[in-house]
């Protein structure tokens, strides 16, 4: 159990690979998933002597779109910086990133509980190569090296594992809606890092330490890792122990975090402005007003619309917009036209009664109607209706008995009218002919 004695202080860093055609600073294809290792490289992304980076305008544009959607302030004068450190997957010995003047600062995201989560900054950088251990030897695949990577850094505003998960889902949803990345977590296109520490009182300043959990690739793992970490830190603090500042990894099998490296020796990235790329003037490169106007309807707006138009709950609206963008709304629209109870349709979508994405909105509605019908295949209700129709239409009964086939159709029509079309025609016909024998 999470101790009531402490208040979690959580910040998230979210990395998203942009699914642009080209890499961030060269012409190599950015889509690296499943490609033969080291087949999508060039002097730039291999860091060969004399190679120079040229920024990808499309990646810049997509970052601006996300920054605008997150209500960030855009730094019109922005530039790239070098983050210097050594690692085998970093071919140049530095990563081209943004430090002094990130592209966007001071944004926000609204959670369903109406908590406003502040975003510190959003910046653009390049991904590193992929490092794999094969037979205890490190192998490097540079296809991933130089893929455009956005980093979204939240303020330490989040107060629970649930909230952190929810925030990450919101960001994911926004990115998908904007279409700037496929953000497929299984492909590593979206990666989560959580910074967690505990304090006692809401008025306490930020704790002097933080524990960073790196490379989490699912929302559930994020949640579970944070829960574990809060418990671990609570136990330590309750026992009067000090928590060391460190980086930890997460093992989903054990639902536990483990120490990776201590941060006692502070990082020293020796940031300085990237001299190979001149400072960028975003107002000169892009029409920012046009970009603002080009933003699609954002998740928050769609959710609000669903709630007011269809009287859905926040929960229903959230899931439908997130998991069934566009098609969910279309289904609800047809339901409204066909006068089917909207809440039932919404629940049918959420409970996945049928595979909406596969069969489409029209068929989905038909299936729901059919299901409703099936309740009247025989059974007492249908029998009662049949008997009622016989009593109310003596003339048609007489005609039928005289051998007029058309009279049967008329009687079935009457049944359908009384059941609002929910009766199974075959069953109704059988009951009718049996009763008139």
């Amino acid at each position, binding site marked *: 159990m999470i101790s009531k004695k402490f208040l979690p202080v959580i910040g998230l860093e979210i990395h998203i690979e942009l699914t642009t055609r080209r890499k961030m600073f060269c012409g190599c294809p950015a889509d690296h998933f499943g490609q033969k290792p080291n087949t999508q490289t060039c002097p730039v992304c291999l860091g*060969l*002597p*004399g190679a*120079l980076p040229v920024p990808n305008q499309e990646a810049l544009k997509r970052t601006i779109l996300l920054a605008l959607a997150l209500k960030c302030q855009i730094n019109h004068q922005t530039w790239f910086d070098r983050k*210097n450190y050594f690692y085998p997957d970093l071919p140049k010995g530095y990563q081209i990133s943004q430090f002094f003047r990130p592209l966007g600062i001071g944004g926000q995201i609204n959670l369903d509980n109406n908590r406003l989560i502040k975003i510190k900054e959003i910046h653009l950088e390049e991904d590193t190569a992929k490092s794999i251990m094969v037979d205890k030897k490190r192998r490097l695949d540079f296809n991933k090296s130089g893929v455009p990577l956005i980093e979204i850094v939240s303020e330490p505003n989040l107060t629970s594992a649930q909230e952190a998960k929810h925030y990450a889902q919101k960001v994911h949803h926004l990115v998908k809606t904007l279409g700037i990345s496929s953000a497929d977590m299984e492909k590593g296109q979206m990666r989560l890092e959580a910074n967690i520490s505990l304090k006692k009182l809401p008025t306490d300043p930020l704790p002097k330490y933080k524990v960073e959990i790196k490379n989490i690739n699912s929302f559930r793992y994020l949640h579970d890792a944070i829960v574990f970490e809060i418990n671990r830190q609570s136990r330590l603090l309750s026992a009067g122990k000090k928590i060391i500042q460190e980086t930890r990894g997460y093992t989903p099998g054990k639902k536990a975090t483990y120490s990776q490296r201590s941060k006692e020796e502070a990082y020293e990235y020796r940031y*300085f402005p990237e001299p190979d*790329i001149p400072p960028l003037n975003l107002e000169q490169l892009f029409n920012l007003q046009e970009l603002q106007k080009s933003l699609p309807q954002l998740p928050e707006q769609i959710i609000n619309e669903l709630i007011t138009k269809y009287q859905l709950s926040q929960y229903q609206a959230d899931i439908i917009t997130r998991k069934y963008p566009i098609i969910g709304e279309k289904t609800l629209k047809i339901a409204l036209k066909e006068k089917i109870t909207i809440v039932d349709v919404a629940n049918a979508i959420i409970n996945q009664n049928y595979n909406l994405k596969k069969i489409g909105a029209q068929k989905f509605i038909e299936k729901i109607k059919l299901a409703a019908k099936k309740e009247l295949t025989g059974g007492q209700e249908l029998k009662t209706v049949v008997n009622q129709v016989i009593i109310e239409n003596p003339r048609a009964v007489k005609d039928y008995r005289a051998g007029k086939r058309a009279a049967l159709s008329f009687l079935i029509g009457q049944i359908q009218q009384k059941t609002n079309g929910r009766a199974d025609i075959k069953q109704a016909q059988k009951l009718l002919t049996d009763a008139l024998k």
Partner: protein
Amino acid sequence: MIKLNEKGHSLIEWRKKLIAGQASSREICQFYLNQIQKKNNQLNIYLVTNRQILKEAARADQIINHDKKAFKKQPLLGLPLAVKDNFCTTNLPTTAASFILENYQPPYQSTATQRLTNAGAIILGKTNMDAWAHGSSTETSDFGPTKNPHHLEYAPGGSSGGSTAAVAADLAPAAIGSETAGSIRQPAAWCGVIGLKPTYGRISRWGVIAMASSLDCPGPITKTVADAALLYNCLAGPDYHDATTIQNQPQKLPSKKTIPNRPLIIGLPKEYFNQSQQDVNQKVIAVANQLKKLGHKIKEISLLDPTLSIAVYTILQRAEVSSNLARYDGIRFGRDRSHFGLEALRRIMLGTFVLSAGYFDQYYLKAQKARTKIVKDFQKVFTNIDLILSPTSLTAALKLGAWNDNVMFGETQDVLVEPSALAGLPAINLPCGFNKQKLPIGLQIIGPQQQEKKIIELAYQIETLTDEKN
């Protein structure tokens, strides 16, 4: 037929012979191969020569024989050139004169060498330099120093010392070098040849092994002003591979003698002359006096003390060097970092220090602010004058070994070229006589950004003066 003892010519002179049918490209290349065979052991100028050169020359000859107008399309057709060994070449290894990259064969070509070969040039070979271009004497080369062709006990200057010595010793009619702060102009001065450092961003850095990225400038090293103009015209212009290249098209430089069409105001910065030696100053002032007679206005001007630039340049250059050399980890190519030479290690250490937390503001940031002041100082001065004239180097060539006596040898030696390098300004070194030891002395003309044409026109005029005197 060329006589083997004939002296080398400039590119344009060779081209005249090619057009007139007085020489073939094969003969010209053979002439230089013989020169190299005779002198390279002694001078240590070429690290590697091109074994395919005669085949390439024969191909050029074929084109020339078929099409006399071929030079219109390819102005350097069949003409051999020397290339500093920090330009990546796909047909020759590229080492930056370092053990780390010994035998390193780049898989791609620098824009500069690509443009030269597109223009028909044939690469004779790759020339020695200070390792990673760290130095001003070519003595930090991991493959031994180059010697000054004017006197074998003297250094050729650096870091492009191999290229300037090649031109001075007739081991190439012309060459390309690169300058971060002085690495074209200073060895050109010490070897008595012409070295043009264009405006920063005018010639692409793509494929040039980086020293300090915010300063590096490739440029031509030649026997004549016309050759410098010819090579510049082939090299200059925007390159989509290099985001720092100037986006507009460069003004073509006149490749025939063209002197200024009006009297110029030429500034002599007193702070520069205060630094340099008397014998150097006398030669430069003699040229100034002649220019005055020709109608130009000579004016004493004041610039920021150039010694301030030593600190600014050192900090910024070391910072960038420490980052630029980080990729030499031996994982993907070359040897590991245990093979770095002493000078590279010193620079990495100092650069790492000035970028470290707690020192960044104190050193790097302050140096950037000072750099802006230097830029503005030149801008202010150029509102009143056309061009600056000053010595290129404090002295004529120094003896080999002088480098060992001073950890900051290059930076103090290059004090007169550092401010203009920091400001990204174009400049040229021209020979202007000899000292008592018969060592060449060089002057430099510095101009405002993108004013290469103005510089070249005055250079043509000075070239005529010095030719007449000789």
